[in-house]
């Protein structure tokens, strides 16, 4: 996995480790978004209907607290 500027020199592999292991080193009072990785994707017809290619981003608003 080549180094690339998308993680400021971090390879994709250790950016995932960094997220998981050292959350407690992150300063408090800040907002953090976990890094998305390329996992499963929807079939193309389902992706268009659901409005996203990525199941992990498929969060339809159903008018109340949504938990599957």
């Amino acid at each position, binding site marked *: *996995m080549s180094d690339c500027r*998308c993680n400021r020199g971090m390879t994709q592999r250790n950016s995932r480790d960094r997220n998981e292991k050292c959350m407690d080193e992150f300063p408090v009072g800040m907002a953090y978004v976990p890094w998305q990785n390329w996992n499963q994707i929807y079939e193309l017809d389902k992706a*268009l209907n659901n409005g996203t290619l990525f199941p992990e981003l498929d969060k339809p608003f159903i008018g109340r607290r949504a938990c599957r």
Partner: protein
Amino acid sequence: MNYSCNRMSREQLFDWINMVSFAVVETALYLDTHPCDEEAMKFYHEVLEMRKNAIMEYSNHFEPLTLDLAGGNKGKWEWVMSPWPWEGGNC
């Protein structure tokens, strides 16, 4: 899921073009933040190729969808002669 474009009706092919175009845009947005993701890049080229073929097929069998194919292969300006995609409640 792979459609073979040549036996599709106009609506099916039009729907397929919408699906595959959506996948191209979604993958491009992902690559914007993950430019080194090889799996995403591979998928991007896959769906891009599918989109090109589908649009070419639509242009050959029905009418041009994009301006770069508007001249058509019969040498006449098909662009304005054929129905627009939204005519007839197609989209």
